């Protein structure tokens, strides 16, 4: 990377980046607090994470203009770790997540993303949306109508304000208005302060205080692996979206490593693991941000606001945050997939639904992805292992043509011989392989077997339309199984 392009990535769009960074910082605060509460930690853990992630990513990320911070996908994965073992284990898991992501990047595993089917990715975002939505139910338990009214007011401001003005993020205005109503109206509802404390100070470097033993590693490793995978999945998906929105390319392996460095730093500075955020990145680009400066401004301005306004932040009612989270889940859900579910192939629809169901049932996004990928692989194998056979007669009924269509390999040959009639009263058989491909010795063996059976009934077999690769394979190993006396 030369000096010119570094300069362009940092200072090519100073005005747009600074303004967009400020907008993003304002929109990040309520989400960082709400995601901390989902995970079950103090709001500072999410705020420190958002600060560290966006600042570090500004320097080492592979996709300028993308925003990374504390996210719902990651928060949902840590709930049980925090409940069972506490914050220190989470910080250690965050560092380990970063190390795993760096390794992913170093070994250039970004291209593995290509093997995750689209229907699994759609299931992933839909499941994420559903979990963020259901995670808000706890705030409504035993709540009065006041809570519902405040949530409704929050949502109304969020969705209707942009029709009037888009200068300030509508989520922030909603939070300010609802908080003001609660403070000045002296309404007794749950606030952020009831669920955790907020310290108005910069994060400091700390080594997580955990026993450095093999047991510790075994506790945190499964969480870190899930966090690393989910984090990269969402980050690379977001990078693709930002690529498309800005009509530019980005280095996905560099982004993987960057996410790793950012999580290592975040873990040591008391933050929870994070990743790129689709919603915030879209806000950033829409607000005119496209360079590295936007992420740096977002992170530093967020920290500045918390240090200055921490006292007010704890008075934000949970109703306002629940409203923001409902908006986030509505924005995350891929509504297009509902509209088209009856149009896409049924197997794709099943994969999508199974991915969502697995996540909703296990509360673990990585298990949903695993289930979805496995199921797609099974569907693919069964789809590809079907050979279609068409029969037709020629030469006054003396010659029979079998036209094979499909991939001929070990998984598809087992019921192939049953599709031929060896006892027919004909002279010759032509096996047309124009639309077929021979993949392995099982394929050649199966054809040899068919040939032998016909020859036993004095029917001559010839082939037509073998493609080059198949021909070579057949020449190399053909006849071996016949000669060996099957």
């Amino acid at each position, binding site marked *: 990377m030369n000096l010119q392009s570094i300069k362009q990535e940092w200072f090519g769009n100073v005005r747009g980046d600074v303004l967009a960074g400020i907008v993003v910082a304002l929109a990040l605060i309520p989400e960082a607090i709400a995601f901390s509460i989902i995970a079950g930690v103090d709001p500072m853990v999410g705020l420190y994470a958002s600060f560290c992630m966006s600042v570090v990513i500004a320097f080492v990320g592979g996709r300028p203009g993308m925003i990374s911070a504390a996210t719902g996908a990651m928060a949902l994965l840590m709930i049980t770790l925090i409940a069972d073992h506490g914050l220190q284990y989470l910080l250690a898991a965050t560092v380990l997540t970063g190390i795993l992501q760096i390794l992913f990047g170093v070994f250039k595993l970004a291209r593995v993303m*290509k093997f995750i089917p*689209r229907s699994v*990715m*759609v299931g992933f*975002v839909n499941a994420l949306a559903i979990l963020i939505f259901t995670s808000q139910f706890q705030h409504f338990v035993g709540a009065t109508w006041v809570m519902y009214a405040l949530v409704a007011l929050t949502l109304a401001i969020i969705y*209707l304000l942009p*029709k009037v003005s888009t200068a300030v993020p509508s989520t922030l205005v909603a939070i300010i208005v609802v908080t003001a109503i609660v403070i000045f109206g002296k309404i007794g509802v749950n606030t952020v302060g009831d669920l955790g404390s907020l310290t108005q100070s910069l994060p400091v470097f700390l080594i997580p205080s955990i026993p450095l033993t093999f047991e510790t590693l075994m506790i945190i490793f499964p969480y870190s692996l899930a966090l690393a995978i989910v984090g990269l999945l969402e980050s690379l*998906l977001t990078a*693709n*979206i930002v*690529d*498309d*929105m*800005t*009509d530019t390319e980005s280095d996905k392996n560099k982004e993987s490593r960057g996410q790793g460095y950012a999580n290592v730093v975040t873990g040591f500075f008391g933050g929870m693991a994070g990743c790129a955020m*689709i919603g915030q990145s*879209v806000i950033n*680009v*829409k607000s005119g941000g496209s360079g590295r400066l936007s992420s740096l401004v977002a992170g530093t301005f967020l920290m500045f606001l918390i240090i200055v306004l921490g006292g007010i932040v704890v008075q934000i009612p949970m109703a306002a945050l629940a409203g923001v989270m409902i908006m986030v889940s509505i924005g995350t859900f*891929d509504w*297009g*997939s509902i509209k088209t579910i009856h149009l896409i192939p049924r197997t794709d629809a099943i994969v999508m639904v199974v991915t969502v169901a697995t996540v909703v049932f296990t509360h673990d996004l990585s298990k949903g992805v695993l289930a979805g990928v496995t199921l797609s692989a099974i569907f693919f194998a069964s789809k590809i292992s079907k050979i279609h056979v068409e029969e037709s007669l020629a030469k006054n009924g003396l010659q029979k043509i079998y036209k094979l269509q499909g991939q001929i390999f070990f998984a598809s040959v087992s019921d192939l011989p049953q599709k031929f009639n060896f006892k027919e009263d004909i002279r010759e058989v032509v096996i047309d392989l124009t639309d077929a491909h021979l993949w392995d010795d099982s394929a050649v063996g199966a054809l040899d077997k068919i040939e032998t059976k016909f020859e036993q009934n004095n029917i001559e077999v010839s082939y037509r339309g073998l493609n080059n690769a198949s021909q070579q394979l057949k020449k190399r190993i053909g006849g071996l199984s016949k000669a060996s006396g099957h």
Partner: protein
Amino acid sequence: MYKKVLLAADGSEHSLRAAEQAKTLISGNKGFIDIIFVVSGAASKEDVLHHASKEEINASRKESLKEIEMNFQNSDTDYQIHILHGEPGPTIVDFANKNDYDCVVLGSRGLNQVQSLVLGSVSHKVAKRVESPVMIVK
């Protein structure tokens, strides 16, 4: 008299009708039509999620404009497609004002008052801010 026309199109019924009008405007004038197709942030997210590669995304966007393209090709109309990113309203306005057109043609979604309050009317925004004449096709 209309030689350089901008057509904002998304492949919808309304934009097909707008295309027809744009063609009529320049016919006999040896005119030229620039077609712009604007991809919003939300559409970007959906497209990336549903398509495996950049090429597939581009193909699906071109596909939306296929009917208009075929119409123009059949009638030997000179045109060029531009795919732009951003909020539809402001993006169309920017592009239109930068390039100095004789007329900007776009379809109206035909929203009622409540819908246009909630959804925001793109054609209204464009009509207000574009400096050249604007034709909104119902």
